């Protein structure tokens, strides 16, 4: 009979969601930026949120990552100790701790996620110090390892990221986020400001790191090619609502909603 391969990828651990959004809504005055969004994200799962600017995808990301209080609904997260907590019940210190340890956030503009005036090594090492590392040699060694993993020449470890190119800055931001081995990383248009050739390299890198580290990722992008390459599942947003959701290749190859068909048909052939 046929060997069906190892079954260890469906362990019980993976059958519990890591993050659950329930009926999330956000209004700014009379404007509803985000309406009634619900989903569950599992460990190791990559979810892409796609849509044009103004569709509410960034507002949603802000709420999911606890940076913006929802007008309605809840976000809950299963902490490392296995206890699921509602994000709104976390204190500011707890939320910050989560951000330093179990979460990462990759901004479109690396300057928002890095300290531009301190060295690359310090940018990476800082996250380790925040979780209690204090041995200078080990911090530097781990920082060097991570620079290598994101394909930055270790000879540049003492240079500040303002001397780096856009692509290098973005890779450094990724190293800074991943060094504490988070379980969940939020990404906001991570390839947005980059040249096409630089984008491809970054996407490859992110794709292999995500698989290697078994990361869960919520990525906001307007680029369907990015969604196709990186994500397992996609949510299409329009006017603050999720209008279509499903397996990424299914939604992109067999789009059902008029707006999704428009988005898919607007991709230039490669």
């Amino acid at each position, binding site marked *: *009979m*046929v*060997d*069906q*391969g*190892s*079954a*260890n*990828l*469906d362990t019980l651990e993976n059958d519990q969601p890591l993050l659950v959004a329930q009926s999330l809504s956000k209004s700014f005055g009379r404007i509803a930026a985000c309406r009634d969004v619900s989903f569950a994200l*599992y460990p190791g*799962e990559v979810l892409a949120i796609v849509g044009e600017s103004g569709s509410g995808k960034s507002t949603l990301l802000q709420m999911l990552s606890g940076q913006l209080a929802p007008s309605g609904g809840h976000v809950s997260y299963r902490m490392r100790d296995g206890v699921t907590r509602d994000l709104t019940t976390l204190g500011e210190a707890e939320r910050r701790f989560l951000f330093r340890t179990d979460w990462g956030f990759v901004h479109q503009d690396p300057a928002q996620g890095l300290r531009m005036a301190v060295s690359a090594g310090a940018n990476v090492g800082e996250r380790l110090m925040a979780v209690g590392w204090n041995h200078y040699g080990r911090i530097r060694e781990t920082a060097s390892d991570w620079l290598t993993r994101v394909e930055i020449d270790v000879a540049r470890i003492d240079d500040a990221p303002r001397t780096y190119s856009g692509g290098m800055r973005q890779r450094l931001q990724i190293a800074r986020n991943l060094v504490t081995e988070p379980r969940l990383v939020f990404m906001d248009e991570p390839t947005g400001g980059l040249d096409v050739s630089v984008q*491809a*390299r970054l*996407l*490859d890198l992110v*794709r292999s790191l995500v*698989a290697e580290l078994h990361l869960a990722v919520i990525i906001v992008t307007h680029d369907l090619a990015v969604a196709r*390459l990186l994500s*397992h*599942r996609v949510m299409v947003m329009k006017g603050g609502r999720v209008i279509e959701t*499903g*397996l990424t*290749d*299914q939604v992109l*190859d*067999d789009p*059902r*909603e*008029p707006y999704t*068909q*428009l988005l898919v*048909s607007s991709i230039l052939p490669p």
Partner: protein
Amino acid sequence: MTAMIDVADARKTFTMHLQGGIELPVVRGVTFHVYPGECVVLSGPSGAGKSSILKMIFGNYRCDSGRIGIRHRGALVDLAAAEPRQILNIRRSTIGYVSQFLRAVPRVATIDVVAEPLIVNGMARADAQARAGELLHRLNIPERLWQLPPATFSGGEQQRVNIARGFISDLPILLLDEPTASLDAANRAVVVELVAEKKRQGVAMVAIVHDDEIRHLIADRIVDVASFAAAA
């Protein structure tokens, strides 16, 4: 014997919202099953919906109605109603798909493109690469190309990389969409051999093959897709 694939009354229509909402019926009443160790070839003229049926079995196209029964780890699962996570699990451990074209990831080396399905199922990288090398060798991809990404290869070479990637896993179901289309006679013969080996291992296969000679060599049964024509 229990069927590995059990499709019942499946139907597919495309609604083209950008073209004024016109409906394009593709297939209806699609019903057939595939047992372990056999290769069912879908036949019918171009546009009859053969590829669409294959994509429905893989979960790439949705089903409007009907059932796509897949035997996954001993239980029958309706893929048409499965959650995305379950479909991904089924693809990882039950259904392989050899598409007509390789959708390559930009910078990944050929050997890793081929080895990847084994690695995601937990095989050590070195072992997976060794098996990938054997298959690439059988499919006449010279070793000097293995470390290069396949993006710059010729159409035929890319298709052989794609075939190697599709045949490397020990999955119990394999879907083949024109696996021999741009191959020369020698490589077509290798594919015929690979299909025969899969049959001996008990793999259930569904294939689309236009070449009469190849169809003759691999088909245990033929399902005529014209009988599922959706247009009245």
